[in-house]
């Protein structure tokens, strides 16, 4: 039985290979599939809708997806290999967030799967866009996106130059804060803030108690806005009365999630939002 399955998989493997072995490596991929929200957004920014085979269901959720309006009638997937195969994509893009099993299976079946890196700096976003541009055959568009990003950041910095730097801390549901070695940290600095979590020696994500939050004495608290109106204990951190009492309402900032869920060119808009609210 086991050998039969392997045999069937192998024949399927060969059949798929034969089917896709057209001389198109040098051409632009025409049926691109994306497995996750972060690759969905880059794909929708760089590539014409007609060349996109499928994107993840999350891409249509305006709370988390910067490109929700651009999805249109592109078929949606839930990142399982079984759903992707019928589209016979000539390029599959994903990140390390995707199920490793799904990615391994698609690779075994002979599909071209490219893993997009998850940048931890704004400079890293530029590199990521150039890399994706090369895969999609849209290097021109990638360079234009980067120029637009850089212009947005420079303009935001210029129009807020007179404002003082602010001591800020990010506080998310379940008490998570974000320290150094993250794109959020880089964005905060570019927007003219001093990240108090990094002062505490925190790198990446770490949970801090309400007591620790109070002792940092921030001038601004940045609160993740995702699922804000839904009841859960995760919000007993950010909705706790002590947060309201320690800092006035105008200094509690709710950054739109769609700007910061994925590291992409939308980080420029996040930086502009942060700088304008400084």
């Amino acid at each position, binding site marked *: 039985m086991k050998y039969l399955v392997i045999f069937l998989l192998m024949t399927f493997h060969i059949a798929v290979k034969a089917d896709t072995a057209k001389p198109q490596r040098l051409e632009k991929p025409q049926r691109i599939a994306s497995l996750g929200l972060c690759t969905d957004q880059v794909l929708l920014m760089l590539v014409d809708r007609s060349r996109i085979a499928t994107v993840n269901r999350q891409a249509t959720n305006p709370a988390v997806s910067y490109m929700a309006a651009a999805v249109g009638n592109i078929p949606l997937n839930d990142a399982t290999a079984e759903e992707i195969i019928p589209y016979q994509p000539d390029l599959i893009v994903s990140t390390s967030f995707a199920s490793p099993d799904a990615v391994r299976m698609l690779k075994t079946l002979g599909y071209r799967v490219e893993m997009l890196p998850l940048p931890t700096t704004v400079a890293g976003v530029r590199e990521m866009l150039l890399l994706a541009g090369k895969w999609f055959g849209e290097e021109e568009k990638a360079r234009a996106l980067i120029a637009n990003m850089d212009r947005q950041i420079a303009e935001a910095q210029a129009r807020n130059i007179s404002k003082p730097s602010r001591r800020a801390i990010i506080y998310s549901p379940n008490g998570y804060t974000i320290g150094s070695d993250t794109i959020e940290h880089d964005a905060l600095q570019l927007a003219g803030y001093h990240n108090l979590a990094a002062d505490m020696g925190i790198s990446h994500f770490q949970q801090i*108690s309400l007591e*620790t939050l109070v002792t940092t004495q921030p001038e601004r608290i940045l609160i993740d806005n995702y699922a804000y109106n*839904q009841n859960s*204990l*995760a*919000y*007993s951190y950010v909705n706790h009365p002590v947060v309201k*009492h320690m800092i006035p309402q105008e200094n509690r900032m709710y950054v739109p999630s769609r700007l910061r869920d994925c590291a992409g060119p939308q980080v420029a808009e996040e930086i502009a939002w942060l700088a304008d609210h400084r």
Partner: protein
Amino acid sequence: MNRLSPTMLTLLLALITLACFLVSLWTGTADIAVAKGVTDSLHGVVSVESLIVTDVRLPRALLALFIGGTLGLAGAALQGLLRNPLAEPGIIGVSNGAALGAVIVFYFGFASAGWFVLPLGGLLGAAVSVLCLSLLVPHNSNVLTLILAGIAINAIGSALIALALNFAPSPYAMQEIVYWLLGSVTNRSLHDVAIALPFMIFGWLLMLGCGRFLDALTLGEETAHSLGFNVQRLRWVLVAGVAAGIGAAVSVSGNIGFVGLVVPHILRPLVGYSPRRLLGVSFWGGAILLLLADITVQLLSHGGEMKLGVVTALVGGPFFLYLILRTKNYWS
């Protein structure tokens, strides 16, 4: 052995509770001058210290005191009512019933309808599980029947909690099952104290008012009846008291097990095995145990992420085993 008079014992336990309460105010992740925090709060000054003391530590310590007291009292009341040494709100499934009621109210947005809705949800959940238990277990049945029925109700309760959390709209709901099954008073606010306390006080009064009835019940239902107690009515009063107390407590802290089991057993010999005298002292005993458990949690895990039920189960689980071994002549 010199026996303390019941009044002296109550006074002593209340003093220990006060001491634990103060230690709890002094325990937390932030290293602050607590005395300054207290004076600042009293003078209406907003400082780091006053914010932490009044908004973070005070509600935590108050809830540990009140909820621990409720659990101890309810344990003593249930052990007296069911005349069963292993009866406890957590073991017989009342706490999980309360947690289910609170989960449904909280995650599906009903709690915004009014301050009383969340504890009321807990109360109804607790009441339903007590009713199921009394339907399943005939009066005067043996220890084993009650515990087995409790296991079944507990299992159904936790499965329904998981099911409800699965369908909850919040993406965080599913991971919060740990809180509901193991309990915590971290990150609670004075608002939580305010919504739960009226129901808990109501429950305390109902349970404490049944002391003489419980004393009479030790002589059997017939005797209690012939002594002039309306057995049927008082049974319902006690069940309502347990449901109100446990329902409100669980709705703001999750299911904290074993307090109601351990406390009455430790204190019973000290009050001459009188169920009536056991009620009051079990309140203070429960408060002490839960305050100590919360202090342990605060010291062991920064940010209080460890759950209270972990500590109470580590104390109560072995104790439960000891009780089973000691009472094994009931079983065979």
